[in-house]
Structures are given as structure tokens and as C-alpha cells.
């Protein structure tokens, strides 16, 4: 049984110009211990689909699916309370802007302990010990001092590490990382990706990595979903995707990479329907 199973997911928003589908007819399944990359350009619905899984979409969004199951439990049929008990414990998410995702008014230590308080029965001192252990695990130097630091006192890379510590606090089975390194420098990006992959290997959790960067996909993913305008264009294991992409959109996207250009001009990706039927 897949850890996360989604069939025919649609997410739509009511707009003045009628109903807009951000995601349409999407099937996703994630197995335990797997690294799945969801790749696409802006507007491809890659974040929206995962926000639907986490139940983080605003009320204006209409989510429908034939099935949306986590460990066999129906996510759509759950009460908000059951949903809250699940997210942060069994599934967690980290975001693109680490500095903006942390609460500026509270220390990093407090924000890690908050998750433990909500989801575990640990005592106060055990929570603190676990938080320090997590800060060490995500490679933050001087965890004792950083425990009492506020987000603005740390760099972007440090804040993303702290976010990962919060997400890992209850040893989730599924971690969704939404463009976790887009706002970071390349050397820091490498550190964060290495950290995520090491944590994934050690804990055996599943990792869904949302990204627009084909290089990041190549360095991390086992399996890849390519999305365009809310639809899945192609799904393949990482090697097949780069070696023999089947969908014309994937091929166009890969050939538009500057490193694949053979001198002169880059081939451009036409805005087309790419087989999208609405």
C-alpha cells in the first residue's frame, strides 16, 4: 500500500471570470522511503496540489478527489481535528521562504517545542532535550545558543535548518518540501539538500520535493512528476526522465536548459496546450 495515494485530484478557485482549475485530474502516489520530485513552472499547480494534501488551502479553494489517502486513511473525510492531529506529526511541510515561515516573535527553540507539545506527551525538560537534539541533527552550530535565538538573528540557511528541525520533530512519515532551497545560495542549497536526503535515508520517511530546478531533480529524486497548468504531463523514474523523456513538454523543458544549448540560441518552450484538455 502506498503511503500517500491521490486519485483524480482537482483544486479549483472561484474567480470573477468563472471557475479556475489550479489542479485537474492529478494522480499521485508516494511510497515509504521514496523521494518524489514534483517539477513544473509557475502556475503548474505543483504547490497547490501538495497544500491540498496538507489541508492548508484557503476556504476559497474547492478540493475534490476520488481518493486521497494517507496510510489508508481517507484525508477528505476527516474532521478538522483529526486532520490537525495528523499534520505536523505524521506529515510535515517546509516552505520556500524560511525566514517568513518562522514566527518572528518567538525563539527558534520555542517553535520546535511547540510542535512537540502539541503532538507528544514529553515533559518540559524532555521536550527541550529533544529540541536541542533536533538542532544538532540539522547541523546548527551551538544549539544551546541558537535555541534562544530569534529568526532574524539567523541567516536564511540557518532558518531553513530550523524549519526542517520543526518538521522533523515528531519523525514524520512524509515530508513535503516546497522549493526549500530556491531562496538560498548554491553552496547553502547543496548543504540543505544533502541534509534533507541524509535525514530521509536515516529515518526512511518519504520526501516530496517540489521544485522548478531540473538540476535539483537530477541530484535528489527517485521518481519525478512533471506538471504543466495543473495537469500531470509525465511521470517517470529519474533516470528515464532525463535519458528518454516521453512527453514533448518535458523534452522542450529539458532542451531550454542553458547547459543543454549547443552554442548560439536556446530552443524556447512554446506556450501551448501540450495535450491539456479541459
Amino acid at each position, binding site marked *: 500500500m502506498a503511503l500517500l495515494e491521490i486519485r483524480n485530484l482537482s483544486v479549483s478557485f472561484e474567480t470573477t471570470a468563472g471557475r479556475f482549475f489550479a489542479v485537474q485530474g492529478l494522480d499521485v502516489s508516494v511510497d515509504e522511503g521514496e523521494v518524489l520530485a514534483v517539477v513544473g513552472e509557475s502556475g503548474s499547480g505543483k504547490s497547490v496540489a501538495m497544500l491540498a494534501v496538507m489541508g492548508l488551502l484557503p476556504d476559497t479553494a474547492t478540493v475534490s478527489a476520488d481518493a486521497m489517502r494517507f496510510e489508508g486513511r481517507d484525508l477528505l473525510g476527516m474532521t478538522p481535528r483529526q486532520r490537525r492531529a495528523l499534520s505536523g506529526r505524521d506529515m510535515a511541510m517546509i516552505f520556500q521562504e524560511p525566514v517568513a515561515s518562522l514566527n518572528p516573535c518567538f525563539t527558534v527553540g520555542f517553535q520546535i517545542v511547540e510542535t512537540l507539545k502539541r503532538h507528544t506527551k514529553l515533559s518540559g525538560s524532555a521536550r527541550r532535550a529533544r529540541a536541542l537534539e533536533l538542532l544538532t541533527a540539522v547541523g546548527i552550530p551551538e544549539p544551546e545558543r541558537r535555541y534562544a535565538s530569534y529568526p532574524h538573528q539567523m541567516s536564511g540557511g540557518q532558518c531553513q535548518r530550523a524549519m526542517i528541525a520543526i518538521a522533523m520533530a515528531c519523525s514524520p512519515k512524509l515530508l513535503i518540501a516546497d522549493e526549500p532551497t530556491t531562496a538560498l545560495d548554491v*553552496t547553502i542549497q*547543496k548543504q540543505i539538500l544533502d541534509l534533507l536526503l541524509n535525514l530521509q535515508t536515516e529515518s526512511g520517511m518519504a520526501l516530496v520535493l517540489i521544485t522548478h530546478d531540473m538540476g535539483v531533480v537530477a*541530484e535528489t529524486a527517485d521518481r519525478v512528476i512533471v506538471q504543466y497548468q495543473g495537469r500531470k504531463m509525465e511521470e517517470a523514474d529519474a533516470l528515464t526522465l532525463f535519458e528518454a523523456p516521453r512527453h514533448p513538454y518535458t523534452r522542450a523543458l529539458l532542451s531550454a536548459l542553458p547547459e543543454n544549448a549547443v552554442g548560439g540560441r536556446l530552443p*524556447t518552450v512554446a506556450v501551448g496546450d501540450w495535450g491539456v484538455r479541459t
Partner: protein
Amino acid sequence: MSAPMSPPVLETRAVTRDYETGGFPRPRKTIRALKGVDLQVRRGRTLAVVGESGCGKSTLARIITLIDAPSSGEVLIDGQPVDLRAGLSREMRRKVRIVFQNPYGSLNPRQKIGDVLEEPLLLSTSLSAPERREKALAMLARVGLKPEHANRYPHMFSGGQRQRVAIARALMVNPDLLVLDEPVSALDLSVQAQILNLLQDLQEEFGLTYVFISHDLSVVRHVADEVMVMRLGEVVEYRSRDEIFAAPEHPYTRTLFAATPKIDLERIRARLAAKASRARGA
């Protein structure tokens, strides 16, 4: 194009820049954001400046665009030293233009695109209104936009179109040197390819010289003739693109190259195989 003996379009000599920080209640501190940068760019060439945040590349951009004066050292445009404190001639202002990373932030939301393009002409030429409009429309067409776009506001454009507008505005007064500060970093891959192609077309057509600031090495490799790698205000390596990509010399350049994600089928194969064997062992 130009005779080999003509001076470089842009030259800097030992340019430094200090910023004062701190002050009450802490003591004042001077931070040296640029620690002596020497560079030369010849006509029609592209110099890429690469580095991570805090390396001084934007400080350098402001100095070579003649927005800020260096704390010490010299900036020469077409072989002529520039002294910002003594004021700039219109002619000097015309020669250097800049395109910023965020095209929405660099366009006035209340100004129509046609007016955006005409403004540089109003400020630095004595053309009549119909002449200005005609030039603006011609430039719109040149960057791949339509005449009817002239009456629209920035919010009505996509990111890629806005970047086209920003490039068109920079080119209105026939500059010699264009400073491109992360011009494609905020754009999607497919749009990035279009803008890079446009920049290459324009460079050939107008004989433009580019200073291309970027953190993306794959883009740099595609556009640059020379590459300058900066770290903490210092130039750590400055050589031709082919040399630097073939054999990076400085340890920092190597670190930077190693950290850049690459699509390498052999590496993917090895990674997946390692994972599969771990799974079998477990």
C-alpha cells in the same frame, strides 16, 4: 568592430566601497564591501560577475552604473575617468544603463508602458513628442512586444514581458554598456530561454557590451565571454569562460561549481543503484 587599440568600454581600477554600519548605541563600524576590483570589458563582449549573496556584486553594479561613487579607485567609461561628485554629463548618463532582477519592482505601477519607454528620451534628448512615441513603438516591436502594449500598465504583463519592457527602456537611449543584475533569476525556465535569446540578439544588433551579474552558473556559461568570481568583496578568479569552466583554479570557484546541481545521467544511475542496494540490505 572596433580597432584593437580602442579603450575598453568599461574599466575599473582598484575600486573599493565602504559602508558605515552600527552607530548608537554600538560603536560605528566600516565595512568594506568591495576590496579593490580591477576589470576591463571590451566592446561587444559579456563579462559575467558570479558570487553568492554578500559578495559585493550588487555594490559593484551600482558603481559601474554610475549610481554610487566608489570610496576609492577609478571607473573609466570609454577610457574617460568618471567623477560622480563633479556631476555627470548627459552623454555619460546615456552610455550606461541597468536592468534589474525584479521587473515589477523596477517599473512604476502607475505609468503606462509607452510613457516608461519615452521617459529616458524626454530626459536626455530634445526629440519631439511624436518622434519619441515613434521610437518607443519601434523599440517595443524590437523586444517582441506589440504596439498596443504601449497603453497598458505594468500589472497587465507577465514577468517575462515586464523584463522585456525593462530591457527596452534601458535601450531607448542607445547605451554602450548594459548592466544586467540577475535579469533572468526571477523567471521560469521557458521564459528565461526567451529573454537570454533576446539579449543575445540585441547584443549582436547594437554591438552592446554586457556586465551580466548572476548566481546561476549554467546561465553564465551560456552567455559570458569572461567570468569574474567574487567572494566577500574580493575577486577570487577572473578569466575567460572557457578557461574557468575547463579548470577552475581557486578553491572557492571549485566549491561553487561543485555545489551547482548538474544533470548527469551517470550520477543519477549511481545514486539510484546505491539506494536500491541499501533497500535490499535493509
